[in-house]
């Protein structure tokens, strides 16, 4: 068993608020790992720490053995990240979005062009490659974003709510592409989601966060069994482990942001 992502007592405080409290998890190579939990549980904070956007208050995490605290620059070259929000430029074409990011990841220009072409084909976007991204559908934008974050063949791909705001068809195609990425490139994928069906369908392992703490972890099957009832769904598991913090307040800015994304992608 190869561990590729490992967090050790990872903590993040914002003033007196504890966003993440002693998180210790490990993710195996080439698996899909989902972080679940209510809003404000610390999922996005965990992801921002692992992608080096935030610095831990205490504890550390290692990606492919490299500390996010000591060498964030090296970590960045090994990971791909698709934020919750839109991360491709609407005024550029799909092709340009990919090409410029390939250059930012130091891929030599000849190879960059080839990889961009392959990525567009892999994501079924070759017909729209030279159209401005503003004209894309929500599902196409998500696929382009995933393609963009895979150009440098990252060891770990972070997806923050990859299907939020997509229509059912968009959701299906994104799921299919995520599974295909794991199969073809052996990419380790760490994702957050609110959709239990998504977590159930995609994940090899799941961790439930609640109030910044790890509430439970395991395979979807084991987690369901842990409730000792018949016909348990992942939704039941979610409610069981995260009940206490379900009514915790969330910031206005966060809510507004989420609604905005939904309307933009829709």
């Amino acid at each position, binding site marked *: 068993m190869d561990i590729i992502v490992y967090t050790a007592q990872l903590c993040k405080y914002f003033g007196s608020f504890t966003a993440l409290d002693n998180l210790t998890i490990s993710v195996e190579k080439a698996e899909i790992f989902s972080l679940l939990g209510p809003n404000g549980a610390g999922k996005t904070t965990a992801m921002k720490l692992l992608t080096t*956007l935030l610095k831990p208050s205490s504890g550390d995490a290692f990606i492919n053995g490299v500390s996010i605290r000591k060498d964030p620059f090296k970590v*960045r070259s090994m990971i791909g990240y698709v934020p919750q929000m839109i991360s491709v430029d609407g005024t550029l074409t799909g092709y340009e979005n990919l090409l410029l990011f390939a250059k*930012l990841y130091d891929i030599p220009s000849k190879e960059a062009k080839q990889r961009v072409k392959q990525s567009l084909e892999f994501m079924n976007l070759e017909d729209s490659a030279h159209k401005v991204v503003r004209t894309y559908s929500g599902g196409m934008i998500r696929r382009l974003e995933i393609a963009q974050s895979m150009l440098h063949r990252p060891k770990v791909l972070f997806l923050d709510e990859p299907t939020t705001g997509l229509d059912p068809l968009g959701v299906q195609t994104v799921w299919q592409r995520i599974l295909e990425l794991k199969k073809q490139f052996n990419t380790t994928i760490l994702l957050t989601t609110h959709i239990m069906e998504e977590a159930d369908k995609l994940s090899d392992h799941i961790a439930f966060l609640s109030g910044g703490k790890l509430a439970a972890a395991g395979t979807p099957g084991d987690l369901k069994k842990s409730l000792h009832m018949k016909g348990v769904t992942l939704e039941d598991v979610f409610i069981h482990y995260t009940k206490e913090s379900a009514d915790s307040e969330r910031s206005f800015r966060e809510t507004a942001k989420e609604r905005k994304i939904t309307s933009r992608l829709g």
Partner: protein
Amino acid sequence: MKMSKIIRFIKKSLIITELEGRKIFHDPTEIFTRAVQPALWLLIFGQVFEKLHPIHTSVSYLEFMTPGILAQSVLFISIFYGIAIIWERDLGLTHKLLVTPTPRTALVLGKALSAGLRAIPVIIIIDLLAVLLNVPLNWHPLQLLAVLIIVITGSVLFSTFSLIIACIVKTRERFMGIGQILTMPLFFASNAIYPIDIMPDWLKVLSRVNPLTYMINALRANMLPAQAGVNILPDIMILVFISVILIILGGLLYKRVII
């Protein structure tokens, strides 16, 4: 080792500039809308003041103010650049850029250089207006190149300043307010439309610490035949020095915009 680091830094900055440049290419309307303001200043304000002659200048008033208006346009384009940074943050682009293995200072410089890119059409427009208004300009290629370099340096300086403010205030509403507060004082406390000699003493002091003044000095020396040969090296050095300081500061603050 060091050299390759510097080359990589410049390369990465230019990739960011290319990204921004391609955006302008896809939607060039902003270039035309930006031409309106300098045209109004030169065609109306300039023409009227030329006739009234209320301010004594060593050259004709229109000649005096043409470099000033170029600098003013650069200032106005650059000082609101932070809005784009906040907008990109709201979208998610900033997060994505920060997760790439790109030095933060290269992101800042790349974006700042693209403000310079946006200012290039303004040079052309103001030169055309000058021809239209019979303002004698220095057309020597080296002088034109110098003007280009000064304009780009000025754009880098003011857009980085704007980026720093954006990283501190973080919302568009607050930024708009501060942008308004800053532009006019920077403009009026400079020698863009009147010489420093006629300013009250307190304003003279302000104009001396205003980077716009140094930019205008450098532009006048290169654009006006009457001022050819004036040593502008100190002006340029001041502009570059402030720019470097601001870029380093911007690199340190850039990630704050997402928190």
